[in-house]
């Protein structure tokens, strides 16, 4: 017979990316900590552990949530999605392809959180405008990209999800064409 759960420890069955796992962890640990430490899902990152940077964003029942502000025990009975669940088999999600191709992931550290927040947005509105994307992602900080490639990638993925085959304009990859008078000079 197993011994009772010691005080300060919880045992919970978490459903992450459609798979159930039963884990024991300190009751005060956040979903972020349990995902990374007990479940080994290190794709979810941390930048502040205070709910300030958006890096640890995961989806809970389809909604973006800062996993550093949610206790793991609170996630029991809910569907948790992390970056590891984004691809289908070996096939990347359109957001993932677009981010990879446009260099929207530079250091890649904020990327999992931004991908998850973007997934929630596009699930609601795949035709989201640039302004709507910026608002939806405004809680996620990125220090590398200047956000431009991220916006272009989310727009591209949105178009793909709408069934359009419309890669971003040439300017996104090559820069703006030089003004005519400059080329002549």
């Amino acid at each position: 017979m197993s011994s009772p759960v010691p005080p300060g420890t919880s045992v919970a069955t978490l459903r992450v990316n459609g798979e159930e796992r039963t884990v024991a962890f300190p009751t005060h640990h956040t979903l972020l900590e349990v995902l990374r430490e007990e479940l080994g899902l290190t794709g979810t990152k941390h930048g502040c552990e205070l709910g300030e940077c958006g890096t640890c964003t995961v989806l809970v029942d389809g909604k973006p949530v800062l996993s550093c502000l949610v206790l793991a025990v609170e996630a029991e009975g809910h569907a948790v999605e992390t970056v590891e669940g984004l691809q289908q088999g070996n096939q990347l999600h359109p957001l993932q392809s677009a981010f990879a191709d446009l260099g929207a992931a530079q250091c890649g550290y904020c990327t999992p959180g931004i991908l998850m927040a973007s997934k929630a947005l596009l699930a609601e509105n795949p035709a989201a405008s640039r302004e709507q994307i910026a608002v939806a992602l405004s809680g996620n900080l990125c220090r590398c990209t200047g956000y431009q490639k991220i916006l272009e990638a989310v727009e591209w993925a949105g178009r793909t999800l709408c069934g359009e085959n419309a890669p971003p304009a040439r300017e996104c990859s090559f820069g703006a064409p030089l003004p005519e008078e400059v080329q002549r000079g």
Partner: protein
Amino acid sequence: MAERSEKQDGAAAKPEAAREIAVARNIVGTPYRRVDGRAKVTGQTRFADDLSFPRMVHMRLVRSIVPHARIVSIDTSKAAAMPGVLAFLVGKDMPNTFGILPVSQDEHALCIDKVRFVGDPVVAIAALTDDQAYEASLAVRVEYESLETIATVEEAIATSEPRIHDYSDEGNIHKKVSMQFGELEEGFAEADEIFEDVLLFEGNTHLPMEQHATVAVPEDDGRITVWSSTQTPHYLHRSLAKVLELPASRIRVIACPNGGGFGGKSDPFNHEIAAAKMALRLGRPVKICLTREEVFYCHRGRHPVLMKLRTGFKRDGRMTAQHLQTALDGGAYGSYGVASTYYTGALQTVTYELPRYRFDSVRCFTNKPPCGPKRGHGTPQPRFGLEVHLDKVAVKLGIDPADIRLNNLVQPNTITANWLKVGSIGLKKCIEAVVAGSGWRERRGKLPHGRGLGLACGSYLSGAGLPIYWNHMPQSGVQLKLDRSGCVAAFCGQTEIGQGSDSVLAGIVAEVLGIELLDIRLCVADTDLTPVDLGSYSSRVTLMMGNAALQAAQRARELVARAVSEQLKVPQDRLVFAERRVFDSEDPSKGLSWPEACVCAESRFGTLGTTGSYIPPRSPGRYRGAGVGPSPAYSYSATVVEVEVDPETGLYRVEHVWMAHDVGKAINPVLVMGQIEGSVYMGLGEALMEEQVFRRLPKNRSNALVHKHPSMLEYKSPTFLEMPKVTSYIIEDPDPNGPFGAKEVGQGPLLPMMPAIANAIFDAVGVRVDQIPVHPHLVAKALEEKARGKEPRVGPRAFPSIDFGTPLRVPTPAEGGDGQAVNQDEAKVRTGTGTMTEREEALRGTKR
């Protein structure tokens, strides 16, 4: 959607026409998916804190809560009795000093006698869990005897005792520099008018998204491996060997991909060394991941710089002479500070022709987290000064600010007054692109009140010409291994910090061998396995590693070509390497697939391997201090920004940025775009809001000097909502020193952002804010001054009075100089002792 393995389809795809020319470029110049792209979007990239090992324990540091004090006693007895606690380290366990520069080995892994800033680490604790280590860290008692605290440059200059360090050029002045290039007074005498400005650039920090983390693992053979989020594994390797007193061959450093660096992970750090020591003591893996607050204490960010420019101009806007003075607030340790000090003067000469130039500088120690290299390293501050200064002068002389720059441009292939050799310069085209793109000529000065345009330029190194410590060895090395599978393994010590260096390495090798990116396997940033590369700093990797990769790949190509030539009986010079084949250019059907060609070469020569290495060309400067500034190539940028200012409140918004950057040759244009946009963003943050500033607690609460806001919420940085529209132009003026002509792009485009914004605010509402950040309340204050009929300006008034002694005098090339100082011996300025100077002297001695 069909997945693309490397090259983009659609708009970015390779034009068909290029395929027809067998020798055409395959990869270089084409946007391709970064080789680490897939790992980064699937969560598979392993950052340092993602690692864990069997029996791994956790470490925390106890950091000083006072800014300047002697350590009287450390009591760990209560903490030692707490559950899970395994071991402690204190300063005397690691008595050897370390530091990034040989000239300032002034750090201990843990403080021994004295603490120098709030956040200086004193004790390391290991416990079974991180929670236990944290709880124990709260139970450690450290008794301090407080010393007088030095908060600013002015205080440091005025207070020689107590000294924060027992070494320095003078009291709490860490470093003092004075150099004069050419007959300055003659230059001022030739001027029609002389202009002066005093400006301030407040400090700010890198704020990488990833907190620094280290895992130290004792290996089964008694050696130790240190995995860390570092931009400079080679320098960390050297520091570990020094402090741990182990042969370097028994230490292996592996730099994990960095979750952002920007210069903030370029120093060897206390926590890295303490983790290694703890792992050796316990005989088990030890992990430490800093909290976000601790990252603010590690800092090494932008130095606060007060500066004064005095420049003589002809009426047509040409410069005759300039005297620049800078004062840097260095914080509590040396870090890269001696180099930073020189960098606040070195690159003033590479954009606009400056026939005579004097540069004086001091770097002071203060009781704050140490400053160091942040993107642009020491050059954004004087660049801000120069570009605002020029804008003001242009207005006063009635010259268009674009023209005053165009009329002063340094010519390609010249040697500047301070003996920097400049190669290609695409700055003219950069200025023309942003001027035309923004409608500058038609719109500047003519927009409605509150709306304005500002212009500025910049330049940056493509790698520092000299290594951190003096040596004759390559600054970057690449090794290739080829075999019958067709797989090419490339080994290089370079470190991927997000800038795309892995992709440049793979791209260049694939280009030369005519194969695909997926044929290349990389092994990087591992001091056991990879040839030394000095690290990801000074924008050096594309140029230096790129040249080493080019050489290694060309040698591999030569081997394969010899073997294939013999087998096919086709002259070697007719062989083409493209599309994973080696074939006869006169009869493309006659050829071998790439794996067949490898079989052929391996059969002919045995095991296949080549190396490539890179050492930059020697710089013509021969004076003390000439080691900072030289680079194999300089990148150039120009920007125009458009702002909308509310004249009532001073609140403003940057609406549009036009940025042109001369990258020499874009190896991968889509990653070049990413670097330009990222630099625009970071410069915007520095101009608008970012600042690493401190306040004093009340006297009755210890009088401590504490960080105002060591959190991501309160350290303001731009979000998606603050980003303006960015129009980027990639300008390519190839430099013969760069691989395929490539120069840097990671840092240069940041430089002109701050002055362009300040200049745009002047165009919009006619006021000057001569300090960074340009806070809206400062704009409002300047507007109030204007309304009262006073000088419509906010900013510092005066530069402190400092005796710089007799400057080192170096005749310019135009004066017939030879790159040496004429008064090396009598120059009264102290240039410190140690390697920054020594290595230059040694270089002169051995290479002359």
